[in-house]
């Protein structure tokens, strides 16, 4: 027996009320599983079948029954007609066979049956018809109104349409729309007047319209483009029936009035005014919107240009903090002098700033001097680089030698203040500050309070720099012989991306002082660089646009003394470049004595760590990068991978005892151009 037969039997037994288990006992075990699963489905179907079927609605049932009976009667009628026609046709088969043709009514009905929509759509037929009729009526009325002229009954609708056009017109197009409507009204009046002129027996046509009153002269009032007499004739043919126009409201130019007028045969464009009602006063001048707080001139404050200051137009992305950093004038003082309140200052605002910073910052121009030439050899050697990490404002460097910075030399650029917007644009290219005999204030500005970074959690805190001032007081033990190698090494502070240009005219070891972090070179007594560099970014943010963040700590410094030594660079420079938003994303690791790791990672680009060391001897071995492990850092920054290239020029050999400061920067990544 096949499974179909087993199943049919099992189903019959199931329908009689037997349980599935009882049924399955009667079948071979090999088919029990199959039968069980099938019977479960059947059982479920049977359960569904036992659901009580609700009785159909009585009304619907009766109406369906009637519909059925009606349709049956129609078909029976057709059948009878066909049956009746058949014998007749048979009788007249010799002459007419046309009697079999359905009547016109039958054909129409059959045609309707053929195209009759399904019932649901048929139910919507009345509504659809009503909508179509309403649409046609509306369309007809609107077209008629648009064609109407003053004096017609339906012209009021046209006036209403005019008003709707005005009401829905955008404010900036309201005047234009009003002019257009005024012209249309004048045209309508002209057409009416022309029609009246053509029919001398015609009486005046009276109409009402909404106009803008524009003024008057001796004879007429001007409503829109319409000339309106100041009175009207009650009898057009009687000149003595002149009646002054009445009015409600004061006519002032600009008011909107509802004018009742009559058009009489005569000159076109002139109507006789009957009455008017002022509908709307002329628009009052709206007060100017409250200025935004950005024009932040203090009320009652007199701006006076202090001596030595000059007007300066704030550039794009420039903030008061930037200027403050560059001018050594606090932002509060800038605000006070310029009568500025708190709040952002819009770019382009002209403010007074110290004259020395009036020139807008130039874009960072990396200068690589691969062949350092001691340019200041004429300067007498001094006692050596004065490394005063906190006193860079007044310190000047008479740096005779250029500092060769490999491409890893970077310029740190960072925001001025933690809150300031970072406009840092570090160029991880070698930016070599060419020492001159005088340091500009910009280059020697030392922040008052060096900040120390303790990014314990691996993140930079804005405004947190790293500094190692503890060792910054050391001076190079050796006296430079290759030239006067004095400077303020490693007075490195981040700027807003303008450090490099200035640094080219200032001692290379100094960056713009706007940053609050001095990078302090340290001098190791032994001449090797235990480390001493602090380069940090106040921003120290991890975003590529956040600017630079770099730090040189004693722990994570790479020193390449020979390069600097070869160039007889006395000044210990520490310039750390971090990435700028526009130049490249950076990945900067900051290792401070207390920080485990600070990472700015964008694309793993550059890690610029600058160190200012006063260590290398002129005869020191080839450039090497030495990294001292941080005392407390659990994770050191990535080892410097860039080694300053050896100088190509051979500067005058420094004396063996010279321990010029060496700036080394390490760039990790492909940021070097």
């Amino acid at each position, binding site marked *: 027996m096949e*499974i*179909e*037969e087993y*199943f*049919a039997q099992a*189903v*019959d037994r*199931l*329908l*009689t*009320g*037997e*349980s599935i288990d009882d049924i399955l006992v009667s079948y071979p075990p090999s088919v029990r599983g199959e039968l*069980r*699963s*099938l019977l*479960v*489905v*059947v*059982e*479920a*179907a*049977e*359960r*569904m*079948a*036992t*659901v009580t*079927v*609700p009785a*159909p*609605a009585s009304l*619907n*049932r009766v109406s*369906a*029954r009637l*519909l*059925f*009976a009606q*349709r*049956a*009667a129609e*078909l*029976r009628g*057709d*059948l009878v007609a066909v049956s009746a026609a058949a014998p007749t046709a048979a009788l007249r088969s010799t002459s007419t066979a046309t009697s079999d043709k359905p009547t016109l009514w039958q054909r129409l009905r059959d045609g309707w049956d053929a195209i009759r929509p399904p*019932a649901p759509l048929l139910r919507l037929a009345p509504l659809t018809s009503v909508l179509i009729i309403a649409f046609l009526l509306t369309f007809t009325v609107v077209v008629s109104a648009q064609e109407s002229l003053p004096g017609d009954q339906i012209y009021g609708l046209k006036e209403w349409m005019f008003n709707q056009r005005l009401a829905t017109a955008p404010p900036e197009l309201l005047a234009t729309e009003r002019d257009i409507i005024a012209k249309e009204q004048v045209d309508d009046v002209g057409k009416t007047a022309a029609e009246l002129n053509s029919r001398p027996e015609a009486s005046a046509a009276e109409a009402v319209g909404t106009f803008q009153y524009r003024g008057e002269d001796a004879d007429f009032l001007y409503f829109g483009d319409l000339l309106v007499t100041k009175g009207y004739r009650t009898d057009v043919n009687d000149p003595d029936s002149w009646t002054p126009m009445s009015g409600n409201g004061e006519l002032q130019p600009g008011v909107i009035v509802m004018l009742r007028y009559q058009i009489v045969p005569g000159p076109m464009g002139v109507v006789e005014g009957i009455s008017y009602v002022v509908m709307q006063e002329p628009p009052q001048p709206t007060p100017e919107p409250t200025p935004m707080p950005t024009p932040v001139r203090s009320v009652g404050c007199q701006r006076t240009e202090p001596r030595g200051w000059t007007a300066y137009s704030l550039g794009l992305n420039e903030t008061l903090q930037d200027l403050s950093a560059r001018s050594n004038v606090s932002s509060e003082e800038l605000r006070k002098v310029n009568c500025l309140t708190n709040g952002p200052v819009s770019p382009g605002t002209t403010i007074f700033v110290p004259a020395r910073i009036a020139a807008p910052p130039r874009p960072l121009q990396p200068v690589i001097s691969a062949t350092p030439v001691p340019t200041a050899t004429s300067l007498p050697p001094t006692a050596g680089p004065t490394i005063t990490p906190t006193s860079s404002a007044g310190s000047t460097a008479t740096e005779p030698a250029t500092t060769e910075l490999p491409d890893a030399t970077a310029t740190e650029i960072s925001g001025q203040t933690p809150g300031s917007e970072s406009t840092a644009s570090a160029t991880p290219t070698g930016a070599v500050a060419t020492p001159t005999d005088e340091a500009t204030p910009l280059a020697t500005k030392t922040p008052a309070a060096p900040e120390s970074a303790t990014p314990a959690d691996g993140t930079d805190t804005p405004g947190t720099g790293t500094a190692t001032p503890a060792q910054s007081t050391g001076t190079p033990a050796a006296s430079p012989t290759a030239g006067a190698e004095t400077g303020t090494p490693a007075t490195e502070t981040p700027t807003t991306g303008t450090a490099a240009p200035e640094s080219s005219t200032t001692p290379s070891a100094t960056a713009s002082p706007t940053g609050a972090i001095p990078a302090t070179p340290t001098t190791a007594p032994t001449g090797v660089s235990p480390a001493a560099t602090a380069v940090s970014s106040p921003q120290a943010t991890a975003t590529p646009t956040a600017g630079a963040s770099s730090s040189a700590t004693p722990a994570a410094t790479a020193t390449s003394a020979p390069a600097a030594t070869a160039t007889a660079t006395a000044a210990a420079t520490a310039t750390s470049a971090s990435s700028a938003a526009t130049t490249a994303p950076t990945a900067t690791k900051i290792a401070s004595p207390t920080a485990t790791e600070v990472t700015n990672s964008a694309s793993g680009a550059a890690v610029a760590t600058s160190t200012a060391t006063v260590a290398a001897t002129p005869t020191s071995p080839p450039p090497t990068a030495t990294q001292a492990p941080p005392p407390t850092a659990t994770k050191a920054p990535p080892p410097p991978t860039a080694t300053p290239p050896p100088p190509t020029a051979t500067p005058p050999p420094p004396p063996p005892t010279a321990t010029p400061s060496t700036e080394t920067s390490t760039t990790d990544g492909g940021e070097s151009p």
Partner: protein
Amino acid sequence: MFKGRPSRGRNDEALPVTEADEEQLLAKAMQFDDAALGELYDRYEARIYGYIYRRTGDQILAEDLTAQVFLKMLESIRDQKAWHSSFSGWLYRIAHNLVVDTYRRKGRHSAVDLEDVPQTAAESQNPEETVEQTLDAERLRSAIRRLTDEQAEVVSLRFLEGYSIAEVAGMMNRTEGAIKALQYRAVATLRTLLYDQML
């Protein structure tokens, strides 16, 4: 547990008419006899309505489609396309086609689909138990709509309407063996559809 039920198709509302009586009735109906048509309408209207309601679960739709079934019956008589063997089977076929057309117009997914029905016991170990717990009318209707026309008709007539194998064979003009095989394949397909939804 299902306790069984009598076969509705034969015992429900069908009048105890003999086959000869129905033949005479149908013959008169073919001539649009008022009484015959009314008799047929009254005899099958409740069955067709119940059949459509069980297939759709929608009372209004069932009323509408029931009316259409009998109007189509009239049109078919006029067009000489009426039944040839089983009038009741032919009438059920009209109802079945209307149901199918209705859901085809609505779109398969406008109705409650198997995926839309929440599953309540999908974690059950025993598939049979799972079926028992999760099957409900909507899921079953949806599954039946996925069967072929013949399978759906057999399942409906056998398990929803309660006709016997022989009756279904007569209504569908097939042999009993063919109906048994069709029944087996239909239930097996239903099982597959339902199980697939529960997995």
